[in-house]
């Protein structure tokens, strides 16, 4: 062996001596990525056409939402956004990268919510994302996020072509969470990780091991790496309260009651039942008018249903819809 060749143990010693290579600053990385990505998109015509389609969808969605809380983007962004703000409450800012000023979020951008801040965001693929207060999320791509601190809620949807989108990945210091068609929360709290599934399935991968949690369960990863799956309390909605507070708006104007009830069930986690099958059959033809913007989803039934000539009462997570009794109705 030539004298310049290394034995295995020498190589190991050298690598240990050198230590881990230093990483570039996150902010620089995000800025450079946004610029290079923009150039790449401009150079790649087919990809750019795909981007235009997404922009059209995003713009249409935002413009439909309307209202003072919502930010509409105009024209075509050169940065190739991977997401767009739908609703912003309190302090929400871009900590690094190039989150555009008109509501779009460029790849590599980091969004930070302050102590009283929350945000509802639509990802390019159509999934709905919400950020709780004191949260930091980096948008690595349209299907890849990194949670630095705080909590996010992802609704990857089931009615808007979920199967056509790649699975969304959320990186955290304690593992990677993959959406499998679902609604779930990922929360980093005091060094521990919690993945709480409201509907569907989510998978957590740590190293070469993975664990999957289904509806009504939670994956907990302690600071020492201990991982376990526990059931959620059956009637405890407290964990989802913040999700409702920053829910994206639902435009009821001209829509059928059935569409509203589908949205309500998805946002609240309730099961909607009809006392009278005839009301269920009529629901698509009952068209609504007005607006419920700015009202928490769980408080909208008391506004919407009476206007439709209906009443409802809730038992746990079941909302039962019925025709109100008239004086003289048989019991």
């Amino acid at each position, binding site marked *: 062996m*030539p*004298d*310049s*060749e*290394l034995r*295995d143990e*020498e*190589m*190991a*010693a*050298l*690598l*240990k*001596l*050198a*230590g*881990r*290579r*230093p*990483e*570039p*600053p996150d902010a*620089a*990385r995000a*800025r*450079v*990525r946004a*610029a*290079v*990505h923009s*150039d*790449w998109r401009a*150079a*790649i*015509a*087919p*990809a*750019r056409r*795909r981007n235009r389609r997404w922009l059209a969808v995003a713009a249409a969605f935002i413009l439909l939402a309307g209202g003072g809380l919502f930010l509409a983007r105009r024209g075509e962004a050169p940065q190739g956004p991977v997401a767009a703000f739908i609703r912003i409450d309190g302090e929400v800012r871009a900590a690094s990268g190039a989150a555009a000023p008109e509501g779009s979020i460029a790849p590599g951008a980091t969004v930070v919510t302050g102590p009283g801040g929350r945000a509802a965001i639509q990802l390019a693929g159509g999934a709905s994302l919400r950020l709780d207060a004191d949260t930091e999320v980096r948008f*690595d*791509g*349209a299907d*890849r996020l990194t949670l630095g601190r705080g909590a996010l809620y992802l609704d990857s949807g089931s009615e808007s072509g979920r199967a056509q989108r790649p699975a969304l990945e959320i990186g955290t210091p304690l593992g990677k969470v993959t959406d499998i068609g679902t609604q779930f929360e990922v929360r980093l709290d005091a060094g521990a990780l919690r993945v709480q599934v409201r509907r569907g399935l989510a998978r957590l991968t740590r*190293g*070469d091991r993975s664990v999957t949690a289904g509806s009504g369960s939670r994956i907990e990863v302690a600071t020492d790496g201990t991982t376990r799956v526990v059931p959620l309390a059956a009637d405890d909605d407290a964990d989802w309260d913040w999700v409702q507070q920053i829910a994206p708006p639902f435009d009821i104007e001209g829509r059928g009651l059935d569409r509203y009830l589908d949205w309500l069930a998805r946002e609240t986690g309730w099961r909607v039942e009809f006392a009278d099958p005839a009301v269920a059959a009529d629901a698509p033809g009952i068209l609504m008018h007005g607006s419920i913007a700015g009202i928490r989803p769980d408080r909208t039934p008391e506004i919407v249903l009476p206007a439709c000539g209906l009443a409802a009462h809730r038992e746990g997570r079941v909302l039962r819809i019925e025709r109100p009794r008239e004086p003289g109705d048989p019991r």
Partner: protein
Amino acid sequence: MGDPIDDDRALVGRMLDGDEAAFTRFFDGQFPRLYRFALTRLDGDEAATEEVVQAALCRAIAGLAGYRGEAALFTWLCTICRRGIAEHRERRGRRLDDVPLREENPEVRAALDSLAALGGSDPETAAQRREIARQVQVILDALPGAYGDALEWKYLEGRSVREIAARLDLSVKAAESMLTRAREAFRDGFAAMAHGAPGAATRE
């Protein structure tokens, strides 16, 4: 994972097809290494490094269709970046010749021979240790594909071959083979650096 240059060529092909995942792999794989490459040559000036690296990557993107795979992607990027560094330094009245090319330091071999004695805490030994550490990192950055990462995972993090395979989305057998090639490439890079040999992966 096959030949690294074939992989680079395939990656560029996917980028030209507009594949977002390919862009992410390109950026995540090349940016940190190119940043460190430039930072060393710009005297640790982070602002200048960011500017030069961004310009180099944008130039590379503009000429992506011209990448034929004659050299590794990182080598190609370094060539573009080196031009940007020279321009930057000329704007500031310094020529590229002024850049200390410490990768060719022939003392590395001697230092390695006395690696066992590097536990000392005197300033000279500490400086020598830092220089070797820096040069090892330069070698790791210059290795093709994910070789540098794989070696760090193996020897610094103590990851198993199975874990490395999972991270690289490879079979265990392919990961073992890749680690073998990574070790050989590191040895080659080290030998070339120790002798200041022409064509060394880490040379200017």
